[in-house]
């Protein structure tokens, strides 16, 4: 399949070109980096930087966004644990996904998940950045899967801890809490 980053009419052309090309390169590089960290991602076949286009393997399956709320409790927990383990594998390799939403995860079968959309990903050893990654995940669960957000997040964290270990996990979780307190609305959630 082709992933083409189309120009956005609302953006200044220079800014638009800069963002589209840099994200295309990042995505290609980090899809590959993730694979090295044992996280399933589509294979990249070709990069056309000037046209901000990636040619990559097509992954067959529904996005987690579509199925998360439809699964039974047990399957949901299993799926989310798997997601948490993949996030842990990325972080253990100092890779921050940068856009952990349920639209960027495709379920293959049972509890197997492929991560996609690495355009905002980057390398960092910083626990703050890992905290932001998890914070975004939590935010997405709260805003679009509110009926199961707590259960899903707990399962994700338990998978995460399995990979990075108890100590690291606690440190990153502390960051998540700090980030939440900094947010203007987290305390009151509007």
């Amino acid at each position, binding site marked *: 399949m082709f992933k083409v980053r189309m120009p*956005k*009419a*609302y*953006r*200044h052309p*220079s*800014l638009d070109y*800069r*963002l589209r090309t840099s994200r295309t390169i990042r995505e290609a590089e980090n899809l590959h980096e993730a694979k090295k960290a044992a996280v399933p991602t589509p294979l990249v076949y070709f990069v056309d930087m000037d046209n901000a286009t990636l040619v990559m393997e097509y992954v067959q399956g529904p996005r987690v966004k579509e199925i998360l709320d439809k699964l039974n409790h047990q399957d949901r927990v299993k799926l989310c644990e798997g997601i948490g383990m993949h996030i842990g594998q990325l972080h253990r390799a100092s890779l921050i996904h*940068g*856009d*952990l*939403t349920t*639209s960027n995860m495709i379920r293959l079968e049972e509890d197997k998940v492929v991560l996609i959309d690495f355009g*905002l990903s980057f390398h960092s050893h910083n626990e703050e950045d890992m905290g*932001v990654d998890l914070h*975004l995940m939590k*935010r*997405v669960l*709260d*805003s*679009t899967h*509110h*009926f199961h957000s707590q259960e899903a997040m707990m399962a994700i964290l338990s998978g995460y801890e399995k990979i990075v270990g108890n100590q690291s996990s606690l440190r990153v979780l502390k960051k998540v809490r700090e*980030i939440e307190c*900094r*947010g*203007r*609305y*987290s305390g*009151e*959630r*509007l």
Partner: protein
Amino acid sequence: MRHPFCLGIESTAHTFGAAVASGEGVICSDAKAAYVPPLGRGIHPSEAAQHHNSKAHEVILEALKKSRIRPRDLDVIAFACGPGLGPCLRVGATVARALSVYLHKPLVPVNHALAHIEIACLTTGALDPLVVLVSGGHSAITAFAARRWRICGETEDITIGNLFDMFARETGLATPGGPEIERVSESGGDFIDLPYTVKGNDVAFSGLLSASLRAYGKGAALPDLCFSLQEVAFSMMAEATERALAHTEKKELLLTGGVAANKRFQSMLESVAKDHDTRFYVVDRKYGNVQSKNAESLPTSELGL
């Protein structure tokens, strides 16, 4: 049956405002007085609070008089309970509470951000929009779902209003910075590369602020810098908005808050809305901006400074 009437009191930042509204959503009157800080300085919270203290009675009386509703015919006293500047908020809360006790009317605290959103929905007719709230106190993208306003994205550090005000202050432009930067940007047009930070659905502006000030220090032309600062900051918000639209699949997009008055930002979001088959609404300046035009044009002596 007569409508219930509400007296609302707002003192979240530099303006003390009072209005009477009916249960049907008719705004019967609207009065305000704004504290204007000296050129080149931000709001000093306790000075603003002093200003509000001295103006509260006049503003409230004006709102009541214009509405032709007698105090005893009011049904509810509401006030903005935050977020905002502590000392300023306290003035509104104290006055509202005193009135409520004196008149035996129930007191209703209202979240500042919710007030921005509700007045925008009321006056534009939007029913179930994705809301982009941009002002000195907020930079958030929010939508109503399952009985709550839920944050889809927000700033992780300063607000877009802070960004413009701090930039204006450091470069000698008048504050509030937003309108001034918009004006100056119109004579610029060369795009200067500045950092663009979108983290998932969130944005962050402090890197953009320091890079812009660095560029200014190195002699970049102010009009080009204002132009580029706006381009980058608004593009970040527009991208976050686009993502939230895709995720929530809302069919209405509503822009509100003081920064909603910016023409460039309006045109960007209009373009985003069009791409997503979404109706676009912008709040009227009068209900988006806490600073009223006529208060701004009063000589400072009349504001008790």
